[in-house]
């Protein structure tokens, strides 16, 4: 029994750092903008830091928690008091995060979630390990049924463990397309620098830059690309470093990270669907990522997205064997070809082609408008090149999407395979997790007796639609019959 406790004082700094991130940009803007003297600028920075610390201190002071044998209670707020009561039995996920600066103090950021929809979660900014273990123990006690206790006496505590090997992790990082995003960030950073660097230095730089040969420009682009790939590689490598997944009874424990260690403990009943993901690049090297859609009260932010990765990378050959250890009830068979209409590929390609024509028409109008009104001359070949690239990309995508479509109705699972933007995903959805479904068709599709099917599954705090196109109506009727009778 813990009553009226406060978090570790590290929470003050953690909160202050979050506040600094929030007020950082306005401070930088004030710092560089205007004609401030250096003492004024230092005062601005000092005031910002003091404000952030004060904010952190007040948050720490007015945040208390109680832990009884059956529930966790938090109280927070200065003017408006908010009390949250969370019975241990209802806890679905406990996520611990330990940034590098937390390690000397042995404290963690902790996120406690239930399966509720409306921000039904508790966040501790800095909690010591004994307190986290207390929550874990109470949760396990509250959620252990008699049958589990009996089983626990026979079975070892950890049923299965898998740790990613270095070779696979390196392959995963190398086959990631994240470097394109990193290039974007580098470009945004350079643009921002452009606003901050004094004009005379900028002029000197442009003077040097404008007098280079084509070879130098190509070299520069190549260097930026190498830096982007290296950054992306290091980011992913650090992110999934020593990625370990273990199954303990009906829970999965996932631990990963180099600088910031993140540990997630989730109940398997929260899993709404398991899916394999394979980008075009990874298809060539036969690697697959295994992810899950989870019921969660968290908003779909970056952390949540990362949390849904069950196994970052595994070879196609070892995939079923490894997954069986962690989700033994799932049937990870390959789906059959989806029963699509006889001209499905033609219909889809025609639709995409018509969409492309509209885009090209808009491009042509914009091209003419800019040539006439702005007196800017463009080479007509740019438009031709853009058209060819657009047609090849979208029609190629449509071909892959239609040829990859798969559907199987097994005893307990709906298995769907689809490809969007050249990324193939194979979903394994327990029937009882399907929340509903939608069908759509145009008047022209009625005669051919085919429909699009959209399966609705919970994903985080909202829903995800998984779509199969141009299916025969008879196969949808079969699914309809199953879904109506599954409890």
């Amino acid at each position, binding site marked *: 029994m813990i009553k009226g406790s406060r978090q570790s004082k590290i929470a003050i700094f953690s909160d202050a750092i979050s506040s600094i991130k929030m007020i950082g940009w306005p401070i930088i803007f004030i710092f560089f903008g205007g004609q401030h003297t250096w003492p004024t600028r230092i005062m601005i920075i000092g005031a910002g830091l003091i404000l952030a610390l004060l904010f952190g201190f007040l948050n720490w002071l007015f945040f208390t928690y109680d832990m009884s044998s059956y529930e966790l209670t938090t109280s927070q707020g200065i003017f408006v008091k908010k009390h949250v009561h969370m019975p241990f039995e209802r806890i679905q996920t406990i996520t611990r995060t330990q940034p590098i600066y937390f390690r000397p103090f042995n404290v963690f950021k902790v996120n406690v979630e239930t399966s509720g929809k409306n921000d039904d979660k508790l966040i501790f900014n800095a909690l010591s390990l004994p307190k986290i273990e207390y929550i874990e123990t109470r949760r396990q006690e509250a959620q252990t049924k008699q049958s589990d206790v009996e089983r626990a006496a026979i079975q070892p505590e950890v049923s299965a463990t898998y740790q990613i090997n270095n070779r696979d992790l390196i392959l995963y990082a190398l086959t990631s397309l994240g470097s394109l995003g990193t290039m974007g960030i580098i470009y945004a950073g350079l643009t921002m620098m452009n606003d901050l660097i004094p004009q005379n230095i900028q002029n000197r730089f442009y003077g040097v830059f404008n007098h280079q040969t084509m070879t130098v420009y190509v070299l520069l682009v190549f260097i930026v690309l190498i830096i982007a790939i290296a950054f992306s590689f290091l980011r992913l490598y650090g992110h999934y470093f020593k990625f370990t997944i273990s199954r303990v009874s009906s829970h999965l424990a996932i631990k990963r990270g180099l600088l910031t260690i993140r540990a997630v403990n989730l109940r398997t009943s929260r899993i709404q669907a398991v899916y394999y993901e394979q980008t075009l690049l990874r298809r060539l090297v036969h690697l697959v990522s295994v992810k899950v859609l989870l019921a969660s009260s968290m908003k779909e932010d970056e952390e949540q997205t990362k949390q849904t990765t069950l196994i970052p990378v595994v070879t196609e050959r070892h995939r079923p064997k490894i997954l069986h250890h962690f989700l033994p009830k799932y049937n990870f068979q390959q789906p059959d070809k989806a029963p699509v209409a006889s001209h499905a590929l033609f219909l889809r390609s025609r639709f995409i082609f018509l969409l492309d024509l509209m885009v090209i028409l808009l491009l042509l109008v914009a091209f003419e408008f800019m040539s006439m009104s702005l007196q800017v001359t463009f080479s007509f070949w740019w438009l031709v090149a853009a058209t060819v690239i657009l047609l090849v990309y979208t029609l190629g995508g449509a071909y892959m999407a239609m040829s990859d479509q798969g559907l199987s109705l097994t005893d307990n699972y709906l298995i769907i395979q689809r490809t969007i933007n050249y990324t193939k995903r194979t979903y394994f959805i327990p029937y009882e997790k*399907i929340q509903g479904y939608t069908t759509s068709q145009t008047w022209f599709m009625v005669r051919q007796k085919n429909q699009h099917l959209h399966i609705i599954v919970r994903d985080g705090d909202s829903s995800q639609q998984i779509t199969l196109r141009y299916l025969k109506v008879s196969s949808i009727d079969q699914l309809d019959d199953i879904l109506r009778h599954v409890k």
Partner: protein
Amino acid sequence: MIPEHAKSLPKRVRLAWLVVDIIALLLVFVTGLIVNLIFKLDWYSPVAIGVNGLFGIVMLVIIGDAVLIPYHYRFYKYVVNESAVSIYKGFIWRRSETIPLNRIQNVDTRQGPIFGFFHLQNLAIVTAAHAFKIEGINEDVAQYLRDQLIDAARQAREVDTDD
């Protein structure tokens, strides 16, 4: 394919939708007028053409919606049976939505002043992931469906899929 026993909405919903569209049209028109008067827009300036063009497009959309009321009404049906609730919309672009009864978490009824005047209600059926609406049904039917759906959802047994 719409089942033969699918139910239509009450006929007065057409009038309620028309009133909603007329009020929306008036609101957009008055807002456009106020913007023109406050900013003293010159009718031939590019800004005025852009702003008024935008108001004009919104008004055309609303008029289009009002013109299509008989079409929407004719092809808007719903079915509630012992296993699922479904709605069917459209003829040229057809769409059907189905929720098995045991996925229903909550059923809400909503009524604004216009629907209140016509004794109509919107029924929102909520699952763990999403929600869908049956728009403009009779108050007594809405209450009956609400009770029926809540009962069915209560009876659905809980599923425990822990490994």
